[in-house]
């Protein structure tokens, strides 16, 4: 019909659009630059939520978070039914408001791991968190440091026996190692295994549980393996729990002196509301410790070494004055390239933030990645600088740190849900790295083997979570 000719033309254009309407391949951009997703009439950049599932975003997330922080501090992603909170101060406030932004109901991990304190709030959360959290801090943790160091030394020493593997290669006077496979993937899990009080013979099984449960999270295609691993862990733990209920087990230092009960024994002796914890509850807590303890520390170690070795001047300064400089390196790594993206919250009440009305019960994703790169808080946030003066790198505090011109990073969250494993993760990464630095002479990146970025020359960025491989070389003694 003539009167509607222009309308028909617009429909034709829509019908023959090259955008298929679902996921699309975003072009890969130079690191630090975002794809142009269009602009509104005022020049404000638009944001296409499909980018979240793109390869481009996974390798180069920070320019996209910058758009969100600067233009959509609370972004409603209607495609994924999620609100993203991206500015440091907002994330901070939400984390502290345990009542307004609760952890109920359920993250995707709970289906596989079981009910843990991650999904609880208030008093119930505090009680359960403290059940095992108390063993991962303070004197309880200090006593465990020697065994962490011993495990690191043992693993490095064992490389001599792994020359038939693809990740340890001797080339004349130098040795090439893929740090993930040779150390970082396994080291935190070994520590967790020991701290929990698992027998040594269960270690191999432990890796199966860990890997399967992690890959089975979130209703993925490996969901079944995750659930089977969780059941297998429960079956195994059941026997241990019954044994520990009858006969407590103790951790000992290198001299054989008892330094305390292992965590499973402690959990077996714990009562909540007058009841002992069920095997189910104990298993869930163990599953959480296994999952959280492994992934975060693995990423922290790999990312820290990757970034340090790309900044030889900073690495040299660190070697010259190790001590607290390792703490700085650890915290700056977690600020710059955290292995943990953020935490989900659900708003208990309707809230209005930055002009966005968020109905009660909405999923609000607190984006730690983005908060850590907020230039309202950290100068030149894309720069890795272990000596930056605006980052707090002292002891991690549940109350957070935001004073004297310095702020704590958000990688472990802050407030009531601050990761209870933050301190042990710090000790593992720092103590393990100190031993690596002392043991391996003239350590450097093996750039020929290291994955490259899209230009085929520069090294691949860390991107989301962690760099997939880290090839090192060092001089053999």
């Amino acid at each position, binding site marked *: *019909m003539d*009167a*509607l000719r*222009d*309308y*028909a033309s*617009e*429909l*034709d254009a*829509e*019908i023959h*659009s090259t955008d*298929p*309407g*679902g*996921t699309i391949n975003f072009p890969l951009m130079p690191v630090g630059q975002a794809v142009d997703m*269009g602009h509104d*009439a005022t020049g404000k950049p*638009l*944001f296409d*939520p499909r980018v979240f*599932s793109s390869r481009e975003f996974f390798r180069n997330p920070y320019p996209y978070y910058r758009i969100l922080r600067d233009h959509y501090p609370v972004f409603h992603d*209607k*495609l*994924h*039914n*999620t609100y993203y909170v991206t500015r440091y101060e907002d994330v901070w406030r939400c984390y502290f408001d345990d009542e307004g932004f609760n952890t*109920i*109901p*359920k993250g995707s991990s*709970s*289906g596989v791991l*079981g*009910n843990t304190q991650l999904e609880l709030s208030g008093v119930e959360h505090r009680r359960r968190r403290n059940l095992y959290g108390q063993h991962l801090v303070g004197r309880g943790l200090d006593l465990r440091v020697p065994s962490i160091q011993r495990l690191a030394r043992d693993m490095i020493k064992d490389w001599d026996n792994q020359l038939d593997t693809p990740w340890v290669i001797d080339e004349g006077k130098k040795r090439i190692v893929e740090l993930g496979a040779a150390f970082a993937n396994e080291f935190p899990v070994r520590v967790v295994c020991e701290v929990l009080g698992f027998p040594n013979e269960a270690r191999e099984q432990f890796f199966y549980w860990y890997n399967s449960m992690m890959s*089975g999270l*979130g*209703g*993925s*295609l490996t*969901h*079944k393996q995750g*659930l*089977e691993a969780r*059941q297998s862990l429960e079956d195994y733990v059941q026997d241990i729990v019954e044994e520990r209920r009858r006969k407590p087990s103790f951790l000992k230092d290198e001299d054989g002196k008892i330094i305390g009960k292992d965590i499973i024994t402690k959990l077996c002796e714990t009562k909540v509301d*007058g*009841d*002992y914890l*069920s*095997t*189910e*509850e104990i298993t*869930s807590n163990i599953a959480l410790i296994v999952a959280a303890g492994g992934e975060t520390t693995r990423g922290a170690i790999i990312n820290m070494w990757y970034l340090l070795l790309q900044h030889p001047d900073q690495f040299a300064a660190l070697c010259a004055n190790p001590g607290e400089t390792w703490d700085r390196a650890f915290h700056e790594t977690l600020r710059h390239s955290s292995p943990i993206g953020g935490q989900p919250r*659900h708003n208990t009440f309707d809230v209005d933030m930055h002009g*966005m*009305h968020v*109905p*009660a*019960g*909405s*999923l609000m994703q607190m984006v730690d990645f983005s908060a850590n790169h907020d230039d309202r808080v950290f100068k030149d946030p894309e720069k890795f600088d272990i000596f930056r003066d605006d980052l707090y790198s002292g002891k991690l505090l549940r109350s957070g740190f935001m004073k004297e011109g310095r702020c704590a990073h958000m990688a472990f969250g802050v407030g009531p849900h601050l990761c209870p494993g933050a301190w042990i993760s710090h000790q593992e990464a720092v103590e393990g790295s100190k031993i690596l630095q002392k043991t391996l002479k003239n350590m450097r990146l093996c750039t020929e083997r290291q994955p490259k970025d899209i230009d085929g020359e520069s090294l691949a960025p860390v991107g989301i979570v962690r760099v997939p491989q880290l090839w090192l070389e060092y001089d053999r003694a």
Partner: protein
Amino acid sequence: MNAPVSRDADDLVIGDNGVAVPRFNHGGTGYRTYEVHQRERVGESTEKINGSELASAGYATDPYKSLVILRENYACFRDWINNCYWITQYNDVTSIFADEANFETRSKLWYYGLSGFGRDLRQELPVLWAWSKAMDTFAETDARRLIEGFRKGSTDLARDFAAQYPILLLGRMFEVPDAELAPFAIRYRRAQRGVLWHPTAQEAGKDALRELVAYFDPKLQKTSGADTSVLAAIAGLGGTAADVVTTLLEADHETLHGILGNLWMNLLVQPASYAKVQQDRLAMKIAYLEAMRHSPPVITAERFARHEVERFGKLIPDGGLMRISALAANRDPRIFDDADSFIANRIDICHREARGHFRADGLPQGIAFGMGQPTKHPAVPEDRPRSMYALTRDTVVTASWTLAQSLPELRLKAGFTPVIRCLRIGETFTCWELPVDF
């Protein structure tokens, strides 16, 4: 013989209601309630589908493939990627659709983030009357106008009939003259598309809403007063231009546009069935009902849990989003025989408007989200017009009957294979290209 259940004082707790009950989980065995709801067990895994498939380009073009996996394996699928629950079996879908106590809809303005923009006046009687009179009065006339405008011998039914017919009717209702019809239609469609997730569409939609308000503002001051004018009815209620635009936006034309395309596609790919439908207006009505069942123009509707509620073995959190799929439910083999086939004279489907439920005459109804849930009135009340369900059905049947009678030699262009798809995820699921000869 089993030991008697202990009733020692230590084993009892006094509940809030003063009743003594055995302590749960005594001795470290058993589960607390929240654990049972939350933990997934071996056998409950959902590895046959990944949530990302449900937001993919493949889903936009062929959603049924993924929906069948859900319907036949995971009656209530917790989709972590898209943060929602998918409901796909017929009885489950209808149970949520009729459950306003636990689940709520949200307006299109809410999706825009413009909740205070204007009022949706579709429930006002003068508006309803004008709407129904316009549809009854112009259903046949406007179909003829379009048919007379076809190029001789061939046209694209999807673009030149299905997509334009609802616009002509809306033009009548809102007093848009022919000369202004195209810019009105473009803005109106942009406003509809902007409801969803696409950023460019959202911006274009917001602009279109503003432009429509500016367009209707002066018109509202001098309406015709005709009893077929929704604009006049809104003016009579003291409504503003923003109310006019809001009413238009919330009403939309998705079902009318989409089902015309889908009905005609299904008819034209089955010439033998079409030949029978062409002979009998009642057969056209039944074919329409079957098209609504087989190829509903809206794949899923969204409902939000008003509070935490346990359904389908899952604990749905307060605010939880349910994506309930008409497409999957309408082809549920538990309900319909040979459910994947379009059978123009299907007999296991309700031919009357269902009232207060989704079954009448003991037969299930094809679910059609776009027109709301079935009317709760046991019969048409004297003071109200027919339901939107009945109006849409009668209008589509009238338009289609007019087309079938006007062009008796109508046939699909040789060699062309039509498909039903969404241009973007969440948008109308219809046949966008249907070239025909006549």
